[in-house]
């Protein structure tokens, strides 16, 4: 108890900020998920777990959940492998390296909405630059281009590509920072022992990156799961529910159908799913092992 009191001045401000700003809205979300709320936002009384039953009973619920898992796994995996490769390259000396490092930062500095809007604009049939380029090099034979963002499959794939693209800078730089903690002597020692570059990387460098990588992946998992703007822009014009994830579905409940009660119920489910994923991840990978 005395230890806790001693800790208070250090962690107190953080606890206060969370308690003040986050707890009430979360509580309201939990409360709303058990209420019947009209379209204009008035509370018509409690309905127990009926909202949850309605959300899970929705005929597209399970495909949407499955797609969410695909979304998180593919985006995070591609981001991780892409970042490891990028970081390895950017950690090597070559003329122009600084320039390339700067370029890799740009998507991070640009707002996600802006980046997504540009790609979406480029993919438009008739006036999009990317479509026009693909027509010019002969990959597409309809003169107005292909409706990339108008088909569930291609729109979802492009959304994943954009998500990877905007996640790369942070992950790359985290790994790059981790690479700096790899003692040069260790690497040199391995070299002197005759290990090849690739072997050195896998046996000496990669284990040292464990802590940086595992935290970066954890942050990416949560971030990608919660990501809304990319999917909203890239798959927003797809009719039906063939390109939705849990997050866009929450958004559809909230904005399109104006069912705050169902949106809250699905949010609670989403919350539990993230906790589940994170718990499994923490169990298996133990990113906090040395903490």
């Amino acid at each position, binding site marked *: 108890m005395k230890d806790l009191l001693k800790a208070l001045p250090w962690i107190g401000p953080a606890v206060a900020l969370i308690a003040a700003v986050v707890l009430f809205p979360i509580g309201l979300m939990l409360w709303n998920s058990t209420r019947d709320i009209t379209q204009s936002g008035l509370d018509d009384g409690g309905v127990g777990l009926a909202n949850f039953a309605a959300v899970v009973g929705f005929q597209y619920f399970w495909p949407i959940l499955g797609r969410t898992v695909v979304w998180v796994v593919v985006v995070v995996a591609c981001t991780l492998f892409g970042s490891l490769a990028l970081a390895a390259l950017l950690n090597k000396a070559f003329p122009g390296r600084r320039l390339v490092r700067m370029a890799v930062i740009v998507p991070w500095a640009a707002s996600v909405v802006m980046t997504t809007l540009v790609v979406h604009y480029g993919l438009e049939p008739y006036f999009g630059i990317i479509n026009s380029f693909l027509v010019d090099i002969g990959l597409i034979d309809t003169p107005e281009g292909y409706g990339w963002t108008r088909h569930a499959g291609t729109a979802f794939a492009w959304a994943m590509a954009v998500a990877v693209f905007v996640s790369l800078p942070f992950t790359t730089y985290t790994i790059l920072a981790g690479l700096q903690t790899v003692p040069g002597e260790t690497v040199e020692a391995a*070299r002197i022992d005759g290990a090849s570059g690739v072997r050195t990387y896998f046996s000496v460098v990669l284990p040292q990156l464990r802590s940086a990588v595992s935290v970066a992946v954890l942050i990416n998992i949560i971030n990608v799961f919660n990501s809304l703007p990319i999917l909203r822009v890239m798959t927003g014009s797809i009719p039906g529910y063939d390109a939705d994830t849990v997050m866009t579905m929450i958004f559809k409940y909230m904005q399109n159908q104006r069912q705050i009660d169902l949106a809250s119920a699905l949010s609670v489910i989403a919350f539990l799913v993230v906790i589940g994923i994170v718990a499994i991840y923490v169990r298996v990978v133990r990113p906090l092992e040395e903490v």
Partner: protein
Amino acid sequence: MAAITEPGTAPRKAARPTSGDRTRVRKYTADQVPLGSLLLRMLAGLVVLVVFLLPYLIMFFGSVKTKAEIRSVDPTYFPTEWHWENYATMWSTPETPLLQNLISTLVISLCATLLVLAVALPASYYTARFRFPGRLVFLFLVIVTQMVQPAVLTSGLFRQFIAWGILDTWAAMILVNAAFNLSFAVWIMHSFFAGIPKEVDEAAQLDGAGTFTVLTKINLPLVWPGIVTAVVFTFVASWNEFAASLVLLTTAGNQPLSVALTKFVGQYETSWHYVFGVSVVAIVPVVILFMAIEKRLVGGLVSGSVK
């Protein structure tokens, strides 16, 4: 954008003073690099460069096209005429006061970042260094805030800020951004603090330094890269925030760019050239900021001391 297209000046100048970084890199990559693999690296670097800049080049070229050209069914790669005046006219568009939006974005992001830093630094240091009852509960609480999508919480935040009388003020969004980004900051800095051997602290404490002195004098310089990463992360996330700003800030001038930009996507026509122009203006200062601290982002300070 400007700094990138001047490879001769800025980057090289910036590269010089990073002596620690430089020498270490040279050590790591061994003495002689065969020319073949050097060319290979440069080729790979070029591909990366093109891929990462392409969307922003499209954005830039689009921003100097006319409204008619950017929506033409016969799209042009480069502007037929360079309409630099777009960068002047976009500030006085009827949709939204963009200059005020830019200022709002800056103030909100900067203050939120400062607040996060002030709150997260002591917390992450203490949890990494000391065991106390409730430590894991605290860390769990922190990460839980990251797992909810703020968009869903907007109605609760709205009610709360009305009660506090700070609805539609920058303060509201500063608090929201700070609270929702706290966890990243705590976790990142936490892992950096945890990476410093305890012996460093203990040695200083033997010399008679208190906890606070140990933090500021001994640890801070070592976790600098972690702090920079946390700062950058918070800043960028606040810069990007959309869902909460949309409902919590109702006066046009108080709204950040992320919200303001959506007003150009009208019911009948989209002024893409303005969307892109504003995007360029918003991106450039952040890119410059990032370039300025890039070497800190990957600073070799930690490796320098952990021997």
